[in-house]
Each structure stands twice: as structure tokens, then as C-alpha cells.
């Protein structure tokens, strides 16, 4: 009898009436054929697969993860809130042990949306995984979380949100930034001074096939997870590594996605990108759902799949091995890297420039963080968007030590009100958010 070995929760929200604009890849049609395939397969009838209705994420949910400028309502639509709310519903189902794991098949995606969000970049306005992760940490008191981003684009938003957080391991595997939006995610990008090595970025050469992806999973991601020992594993399940994706240059396939899911065993998967809506998404999503539920997926093969044509070259294999070796050596040295990064108590400054391709905004940031060995460290971000506002966001991390909490309030209180349009304080230990 057909039955899920693992009870699996699904939120399916294709937002059939929402698009960025009519011909944009992020449009109504995107999950239409996926819905057709999943419905025709009778997925929702399988005992042990439970479909949940999404909920609306609240401003409070977003305020745990991001500074929205000027506020949450201005930069989101209902669809963004339902997408983030869908991920939250899956989190509740998994954390409440109603299901063993869950998959939020929602749109629009979120992984390019950063700690400060002035609008849309890379089709993302708010970061749905980060909102979900912060919700889980507050509501269920989970300490160590790993986010594995398998979207073909560097998950730079999630990378940025957890940049200073040693308790959240973020690993992104993606097409090499020299050939692909957003142009970041190189091996040297390892996280902030208090969290070096808790962000790992694995660029893959164009033309990487199933062999290469599974090599990275087996030889890098799984050993790192073993060492990190997360309480929860989240997969940002982008599906644009597919050999037919119009925006990327990779050779991954539905069988590969299903195998990756079986190896990774995510507690929660959240859909990110993936724009080969007819030839890839119906099969990839089906493969991921079956893999999560522990149902045989060997029959899930694209009609035009030809493994011979998709084989990766020897030089690609070599490049991937070299990258994996490099990442593994960074991981092994992470504690040393952290202690070399600065002296506790001092403030370190970094400058960043961020371009919002979807909304055509240019942002300049100056970030100051307190070096700390006891927690992720409080920090402030001075952010000026053009066109847009000039704001200051102060973040006190969820496990902040006494000194960092004090420093966070000092950042907030000493900030000159006349310099900024708005000043925000995200006090995670108190789960509160203040604006002045």
C-alpha cells in the first residue's frame, strides 16, 4: 500500500493571482504545472501526507528577522505574508510533532532579502526562511539551526541575516558568482568576526551535474552537519539548478533533487527559486515531496532526461573537489579564525553596497559590531537607500550576553534622531522591536 514512511506536512500556496509583473518569472503560472502534476499523482490522498492551509505572517514575525524600511506593510503584499506564513505553519506542524517533516511550496521566494530590506531584490521582499527560523527560536526555544540553501543563486539574504550568528549554520551551494546573480558567495565569505565558519559558501562551476551536487553533499555538507549537530535542518529548496532552467547554467535533475533530499533529511524544506516551470518544477517538486515522505521516487524522471548529455566534464569535477577541500579546511579552522578576527569588546566596522535589481534601489551600509566570545554580538547598521530612506537598525542577538545587550541599547539610545529618518531596535532576547 502507498503510504508515507515519514509523516510529511505540505503547505501548497501557488498564489495563482499574484505576479511581480505579467511576464516576470515570478508570475501566476509558475506553480500551475506543479499543481497539475501533484494533483494528478494524488499526493494529497496518500496516508501520512497532510496538507495545511497557510496563515498570514504578522509584522511582529518579520520584526524578529528584518528591518523593513519604512515598515513591513509598505514593502510587502499579502502574497509575501502568506508565503512567510506558510513556512510558519509548516514549522508549527513539525515542531508540534504533528508531522515528522514538512515542505512549504510557496511563492514568492525570500532568500535574497537581507537584514535591512528597502524593497525587492532577486524577486524577494522579505526573507521567508529567516522569518520562520526566528519564529522557531522564539516560540520553541530551539538553539542550533542549520539552513542549507540549494538554490542555484547565492542565498545572499539569508547569508546576511545570519552572518554574525554562530548558532545558525548557513551553507549555500550555488552557481559561481562570477557567472550569476547576485555575484557573491565565494569560499572566503565565512561569516562575521564572531561567527567565522558558521556561513559556508560553495560556488559551483556552470555545467555541474547530479554527480557534482551529490559530491558536495556527501563530502562537505553532511560532514559539517555531523560536526555542527543542529537541532533542526532547514533546506532552502530552490529548483533552478535544473538542466532546463532558463536563468541558470547547471545540469541537475529531478532524481538528483530527490536523492539530495534523502541525503540531507531536512526537517523543513522551503521552496525558493526555479523557473523551468513546465519541464522541471512538476518533476522536481514531486521528487522532493516523495523523498521527504520516504516514498519510492525512482519513477520520477523528466520525459526528456538524458544522463549521457548531462554528464559533467573532468575539469568541472576537479574544480568542485578543490572547492570542497578549501571549504573543509576553513570549517576545520573556524574557531581559530574567530579568535583571530578581533579583540573582545572592540567595535569592528564594515561597509557594503547592495543593489536591488527588482525595485532598482541602491543601498549603502556601514555596520558596526561588538566583538564578543560569549554571543553573536550586538551590531548596528547605518543604511542609506537611493532612492529611499536613511535608517539605523540595531540588532541584539537572541542569545546575547549582558555586555552586548547593554551595547545594543547604547547604540540605539545614542543614535542622533536628526541624522536618520528612522532608528530601529530589534531586541531578540526580549522579543521586542522599537522605532524612534
Amino acid at each position, binding site marked *: *500500500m*502507498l503510504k508515507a514512511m515519514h509523516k510529511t506536512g505540505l*503547505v*501548497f*500556496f*501557488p*498564489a*495563482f*493571482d*499574484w505576479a511581480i509583473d*505579467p*511576464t516576470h518569472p515570478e*508570475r*501566476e*503560472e509558475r506553480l*500551475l*504545472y506543479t*499543481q*497539475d*502534476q501533484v*494533483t*494528478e*499523482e*494524488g499526493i494529497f*490522498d496518500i*496516508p501520512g501526507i497532510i*496538507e*495545511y*492551509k*497557510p496563515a*498570514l505572517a504578522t509584522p511582529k514575525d518579520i520584526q524578529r528577522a528584518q528591518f523593513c524600511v519604512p515598515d513591513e506593510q509598505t514593502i510587502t*503584499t*499579502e*502574497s509575501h505574508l*502568506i508565503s512567510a506564513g506558510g513556512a510558519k505553519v509548516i514549522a508549527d506542524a513539525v515542531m508540534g510533532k504533528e508531522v515528522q517533516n514538512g515542505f512549504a511550496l510557496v511563492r514568492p521566494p525570500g532568500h535574497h532579502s537581507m537584514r535591512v530590506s528597502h524593497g525587492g531584490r532577486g524577486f524577494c521582499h522579505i526573507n521567508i526562511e529567516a522569518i520562520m527560523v526566528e519564529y522557531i527560536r522564539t516560540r520553541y526555544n530551539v538553539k542550533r539551526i542549520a539552513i542549507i540553501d540549494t538554490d542555484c543563486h547565492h542565498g545572499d539574504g539569508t547569508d546576511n541575516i545570519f552572518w554574525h550568528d554562530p548558532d545558525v549554520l548557513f551553507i549555500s551551494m550555488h552557481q559561481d558568482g562570477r557567472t550569476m546573480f547576485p555575484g557573491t558567495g565565494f569560499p572566503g565569505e565565512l561569516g562575521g568576526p564572531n561567527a567565522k565558519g558558521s556561513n559556508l559558501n560553495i560556488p559551483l562551476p556552470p555545467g555541474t551535474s547530479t554527480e557534482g551536487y551529490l559530491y558536495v553533499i556527501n563530502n562537505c555538507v553532511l560532514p559539517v552537519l555531523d560536526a555542527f549537530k543542529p537541532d533542526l535542518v532547514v533546506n532552502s529548496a530552490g529548483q533552478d539548478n535544473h538542466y532546463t532552467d*532558463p536563468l541558470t547554467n547547471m545540469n541537475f535533475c529531478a532524481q538528483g533533487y530527490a536523492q539530495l533530499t534523502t541525503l540531507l533529511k531536512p526537517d523543513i524544506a522551503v521552496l525558493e527559486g526555479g523557473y523551468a516551470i*513546465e519541464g522541471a518544477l*512538476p*518533476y522536481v517538486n*514531486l521528487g522532493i515531496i*516523495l523523498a521527504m515522505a520516504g*516514498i*519510492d521516487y*525512482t*519513477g*520520477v*524522471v*523528466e*520525459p*526528456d532526461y538524458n544522463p549521457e548529455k548531462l554528464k559533467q566534464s573532468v575539469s568541472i569535477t576537479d574544480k568542485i573537489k578543490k572547492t570542497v577541500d578549501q571549504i573543509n579546511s576553513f570549517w576545520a579552522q573556524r574557531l581559530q579564525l574567530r579568535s583571530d578576527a578581533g579583540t573582545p569588546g572592540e567595535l569592528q566596522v564594515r561597509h557594503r553596497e547592495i543593489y536591488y535589481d527588482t525595485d532598482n534601489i541602491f543601498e549603502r551600509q556601514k555596520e558596526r559590531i561588538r566583538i564578543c566570545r560569549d554571543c553573536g554580538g550586538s551590531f548596528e547598521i547605518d543604511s542609506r537607500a537611493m532612492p529611499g530612506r536613511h535608517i539605523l537598525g540595531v540588532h541584539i542577538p537572541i542569545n546575547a550576553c549582558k555586555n552586548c545587550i547593554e551595547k545594543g541599547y547604547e547604540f540605539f539610545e545614542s543614535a542622533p534622531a536628526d541624522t536618520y529618518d528612522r532608528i530601529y531596535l530589534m531586541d531578540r532576547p526580549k522579543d521586542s522591536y522599537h522605532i524612534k
Partner: protein
Amino acid sequence: MIIGLDVGGTHTDAVILSRNGIEKSIKVPTDPADLFNTVLSGFTRLLASIDPSQIQRVVISTTLTTNAIVQQNMEPVGMIVSAGPGIDPEFFRTGDHYYAVSGSINHRGREKAPVNEIQIQDIAKKLKDAGVEYVGVVSKFCVRNPSHEILIKRILNKFFKQVFLGHHVSGNLNFPRRIATTHLNAAVFALHKSFFEAVRKSLAEKGLTIPIQILKADGGTMSLEASMHFPGQTVLSGPAASIMGAIPYAPEGQDVIVLDIGGTTTDIAFLVDKAPLLEPVGIQRGRYKSLIRSLRTDSKGIGGDSALRVSDNVLTIGPDRQGPAMAFGGPLPTPTDALVVLGLMDTGNREKAVAGIHTIAQELGLSDEQAAEKVFKACCTIILKKTFEMIDQINSQPVYTVHDFLEGYKLSPQKILLLGGPAPYFAKKIEDLYQIDTLAVPESAVANAIGAALARTTCEVSLNADTEQGIVTAHEEDFAEPVSKTFSEDELMETAYNLLREKAINSGADPENMDEVEVVEYQKFNIVRNFSPRGKIFRTKMQLKPGLIKGFEKMLH
């Protein structure tokens, strides 16, 4: 005058209605071993002293197919399924004669792998040798492109009595359910056909020659001819008959709970503005899931004859029935005995009822009266709890658009209608306990027959237009037409309405009762490839809603 006849598990009820109300009603015991004679004796008693030429409409609801499924008394059927990529079709095996074959159609209806005709011929030979006479053919995504099913049927036609195709079953996607439903239609076809041909013949001998209508699980009717193609649709028409019988008493514009309290179970259903809620995909009972349109009903194993027991000081009710109430000679105390003890019912043997409830009362350490009260209250509570669970479930049904998420209909019933024997006794109690306006339907003992008599013809069409491929289709109706790039929503709706009307007339609908057309679903998508528009996909489902025929309802008030 019109006739409704409902064959139930224990009783068969029939009524003759005129525009003045109930002219005659009868109740005869059902003989499960001989349903034909049950139906016949029902008609004989009903038509005694009635001029058959006065009868304008006959609707029959039977348990024929339901019994055949329960007793596994079905024709062996050959099934040929082609799946293409996806879940292994072996999981959906219907029996010994089940073959998964090559050939594949994708979600857009494009052929991805051809049918292997030699393979089909080999299977045809094997089925023939095994003595199989009926075959079902189902291909994945046949509702988008049925050409493989049609090709396979062409090969099989000369070998078998009848070949049933998956795309005729429903316009809905769901390959496993389509396999189960096609199999069911093929498996009960011979039984259904011989039964109703015999009924038609006998009624003609009695001078009743008007076309017979058959009640479906969605609370609508279809002509006898139409039923021959989809006999599976008659499954569970019994609960549907009762629910339709409650509609005359439902207020307009309100949400209503309908509870049919029977001997062993209570059926639960909902009306929205006098129209019953339907299952979103099709009938499901336990592991059995189909694409058969059906009223949304669920049942709870509590009825007037449920067995009462006490173990470890805890009272349990049902889910089994060990016979009638002790007041009527049964072996175990039941909720009906509690009603007798409380003095609410004055039929049956009161002494025996008291003796039964007394054993329960002793174990619970209560007086007889208190124990009976506890039983009665527990019955109401359990049934209502299940009802509220169903409402929550209906209201938390997933939706796929922002609009439906924000504006979607929320079911919030303000009234309860009760059917079944114990209904009058329960009404006041439920009203007291839950403060919801509760009414026991008058004539509730024959509400099922009234529901059958008054049910109008229902049907649904599903259309899919794809202007990139230049086609609008409703394959369930064997309909496909070319369309231009400028095909519009208005043209789609007009096409859908014409198809629906034609289907309704063919199913025996009276044109006077065809104004309750509803667009169940409408979606439009731009097809975009490489950032440029290539066409549009339109989808719609249109239905004739279940409801009552005009002209009779008022007299029942």
C-alpha cells in the same frame, strides 16, 4: 404527481407528492438479498389505487452498488493504465487483471511517449483468455489529452462487451482516483444494467412508462440511460436522499447543519443557502477514494440503537449495534432505551428499557434517571463535537489564490435540521445544550423519499482552453474545438454553458429546472516563455447545483 423511492439498509421508503403535499407514503422492509423485489413491492403498494398516468416523475435511490462494493460482489474487470513519469502505478492495482503499459502524456496534454499497440494486443488476448468481459482504460493526464485511451479502446473494442475510459469519469485531475472510479463503473455495470432493465420492465407492466431518474451521490438525478455509463455515481445516494429531504425546511441565505440520526450512525452534512456542500474531489470512505461527485457527508457511529456499555466507570456508546433497543426486544441497552426511561418516548416496553438502563446506572453509581440523562447528553455531545470538527476542517481547507485566502467563504451554521426516528426527542436537548436553533424535520421518517422525489438533475463540466496550443477542450464530454489567440473569458463561459446545458438535457433535466448554474472555478494564466507572452490558459468548472425541482416545496411547509 411525482414519486421518490429510497431503498435503505433496513427499510425502503417511498412517497407520492403532488403540488398539495404528500399524497401517500409507505415503508416496507428491505430484503438485501433481493433488492429487485423490494423495489417492486414498494411500487406495488405505492401505486395501489393510483392512476399511473398521473405520475410525471419517478426517482429511485438504491443501495445496489454500495452493497456490491461492501460484499465484494463485483464483476472481474481488466484495467489497463499508462502512467509515464511519477509514482509507480503498481500502487493503484485494482485486482488480478491490472496492467501498467507504456505511453505517456504530460500536464499540458502533450504526448511524451507513444502507446505500444502490440503490447495492448497481447494484454487483450490475456484478458480474453481469462474470461474478462469489461475493461477500464486510464492514462495519466487523459483529461488534458485522451488520445491514448481512445487508441487503446479502438484496439480492445472487438474483444470485450464494454470498454470504460478514464477521461469520461470526471474533468478532475487525480490519476489514482480515476483508476478506482473507472474500475468501479466497469465492475458494477452489468449488475446495474440488469437490475434497472428489470425495474423498467416491471414498472412498464404497471403502466408507468415515463423515464426513470436515478439518484446520485451528489444529491442530483440522472436519467437511467445516463446512469448506464456511470453506475458508480449511485454509490451512497441514500445519505444524499435524506439530506435533500431537509432542504425544504432550510432558511434562505443561511448556513445549516443537517444531522440524520439513524439506528447505528448519524450522518452529518451542511447546507449553504439551501444548497448542500459538495466534496471537493469526490467520495471518500476510509481508504477508498474516488472522483464521484458527492455531497460532503461524514458519519459518526452513534444512533438510536448503538450499544451502551460501561467499563472502568466510563460510559461508551457504540460504534456497534447489537440489535434493536431493549424496549423493542434487543439484547443491550441503547440510547433509545434512555429516551424511554426519560419519558420522552412512549413506545416500546418501558420495563425492559428501565431494566437495561438500570444495569448501566448501577455501574456508574447513578439513579436510572440520571444514567439515562447522561446517555442522552453524551449522544448529543459526541455528535455535535464531530460536527464542529467537520466545520473546522471545511474552513481550514487549503486555498490557492490570495483572493480566496483573504475573502474565502467561512461556514458558520446558525441552524440545525434533524432527520431520522429519534430526531424529535433530540431537537430540544441539542438546542438547550448548544443554543442553536434546532428543528426536527416534519415527516422526517420519509424525508429520504421526499428528497429523492424532489431532487433535480445535476451535472458539471470542466473546460481547459490553451491558446498557445489553439484548443479548448472538455474531454469528459468528448468535446474539443480549435480557438484563436484572442479567445476570451466570455467565449469560454458561453462554450461551458452550452456544454452544461446539453449535458443536463441528455441527463434528463427539465429545462424549467436549469437556472441554478454556478461557476465553481475560474482561472486564467498567461503563458510566458523567454519573457514573451505565448498565449493564455483558461480553466473553468461550471455546474448545475444540487437542489429541488420547482413547484412542490411550498406545500411541505
